[in-house]
């Protein structure tokens, strides 16, 4: 009985089309960053059958009820909400692992979003890959959409498809997160740059997340990098959260981190442009 008044929160769906570009990591980290800023946040894992968000947050062992239990009325919404172990104002509604996307309808998702937005400032929905039922469920109750892509031709192609579908659903133009950009590869011309991606997608940019090994280890440990003040990727996620809050945050300069190896090469005269 902690929340009485309607918070009238924002429902934001994180999607991508292509799988494996970092939707779930983005959802967890942007959510954690918003929660660290004092907002009440609930993350909804809409990837029914391929439950992941709980693992990234290190909350798998706490799951009793899931999203399908809620929409089918087997439990109350409150019972399915898992409170994060680090941030008191961050919660998760896990996906069902033993069911599939057809277990939830777009109407049910809309209803769920309506209930959640009364209790939370932000409702972040982690969309499954693809453009089918799972995706349509994920955007059914959304006010805004964030599209995650990698600087790869196939990921950008799928993101473009998704942007078209979001526009067709009469939602506002989605905002773009370019994830796993490697400044060194871009510099060598071996990777699409953020500008290349923007030229095709032509939607507003809300975040650029550098490729960062620490994300892999943090994800495996169930620790959002957004809570690690020394992580460059974590800073990028915190910046996205700040931009969602309407703050005008400049984009971090995309330089390759000056590692020992590069410094040594430069000392030997191989450093190239700095």
């Amino acid at each position: 009985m902690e929340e009485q008044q309607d918070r009238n929160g924002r429902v934001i769906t994180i999607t991508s089309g292509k799988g494996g570009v970092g939707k779930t990591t983005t959802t967890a980290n942007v959510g954690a960053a918003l929660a660290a800023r004092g907002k009440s946040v609930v993350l909804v894992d809409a990837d029914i059958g391929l439950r992941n968000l709980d693992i990234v947050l290190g909350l798998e062992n706490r799951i009793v009820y899931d999203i399908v239990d809620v929409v089918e009325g087997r439990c109350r919404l409150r019972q399915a909400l898992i409170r994060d172990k680090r941030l008191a104002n961050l919660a998760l509604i896990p996906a069902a692992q033993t069911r599939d996307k057809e277990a939830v309808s777009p109407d049910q998702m809309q209803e769920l979003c309506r209930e959640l937005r009364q209790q939370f400032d932000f409702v972040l929905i982690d969309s499954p890959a693809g453009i089918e039922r799972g995706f349509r469920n994920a955007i059914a109750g959304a006010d805004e959409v964030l599209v995650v892509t990698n600087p790869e031709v196939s990921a950008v192609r799928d993101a473009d498809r998704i942007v078209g579908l979001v526009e067709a659903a009469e939602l506002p133009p989605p905002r773009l997160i370019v994830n796993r950009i490697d400044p060194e590869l871009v510099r060598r011309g071996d990777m699409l740059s953020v500008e290349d991606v923007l030229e095709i997608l032509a939607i507003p940019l809300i975040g650029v997340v550098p490729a960062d090994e620490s994300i892999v280890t943090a994800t495996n440990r169930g620790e959002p990098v957004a809570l690690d003040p020394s992580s460059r990727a974590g800073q990028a996620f915190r910046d996205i959260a700040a931009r969602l809050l309407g703050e005008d945050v400049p984009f971090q300069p995309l330089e390759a981190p000056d590692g020992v190896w590069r410094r040594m090469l430069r000392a030997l005269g191989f450093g190239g442009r700095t």
Partner: protein
Amino acid sequence: MLDGERLEASVRVRGTQDGVRLVLPRDVAFPSILAHVHDVLEARAAFFRGAALVLDFSEREPVLEEIVALQRLLDARGVRIQAISAETPEHRERLARWGFRTELAGSPRRLRLVEPGAEEAPDGSATYVRRTLRSGMSVEAEGHLVVIGDVNPGALVVAGGDVLVWGVVRGTVHAGRNGDTGAVIAALRLAPMQLRIAQLVARAPDRGAHLLDAPALARVVDGQIVIEPWRIERR
């Protein structure tokens, strides 16, 4: 007084590459010309409404009062005079001195001949799409197709006639799908996955697909699709 047939021949309406021309005869008194133009406008009101034409004095000596009378008549029916032309340099000079344009600057290339009385242009009208076509979207048109926006990779555009893209073509465009090898594809930038004109197919090079960073036009030359940059100064 002229009989019907001679009257028919007095003022000629010609569809030309530059559009519609109203050609005035040399030896006919002006009042009957005025009457005839009036009849022509009445008979083909729908065709002329909102049109712009060239008033061609041909060998007839231009007289300011006649021009003014014709202009008033045409104005009343929503027809605009684009230019007034004449056969001899002296006559053209005189028209220019009065402040009229004597010829159209740079006639458009592929303007189709439109004969008065024809219901519509031979290829039908153009379809107009004002948005970027993203991956997975497709648009088909019977006639010409105009896209204001980009055609992204994974998008497909098909038209019976020409395709004009005011944007970047990165996807696949098919013009003249019913076999019209005269169809063209024009875009602000052509970096297509594939272009098709009639039954011909041109695809992007597998390696080093470079982007022609200029407006360009693709057409069929000797049974092959060729892409040429569009140079404004040439035309």
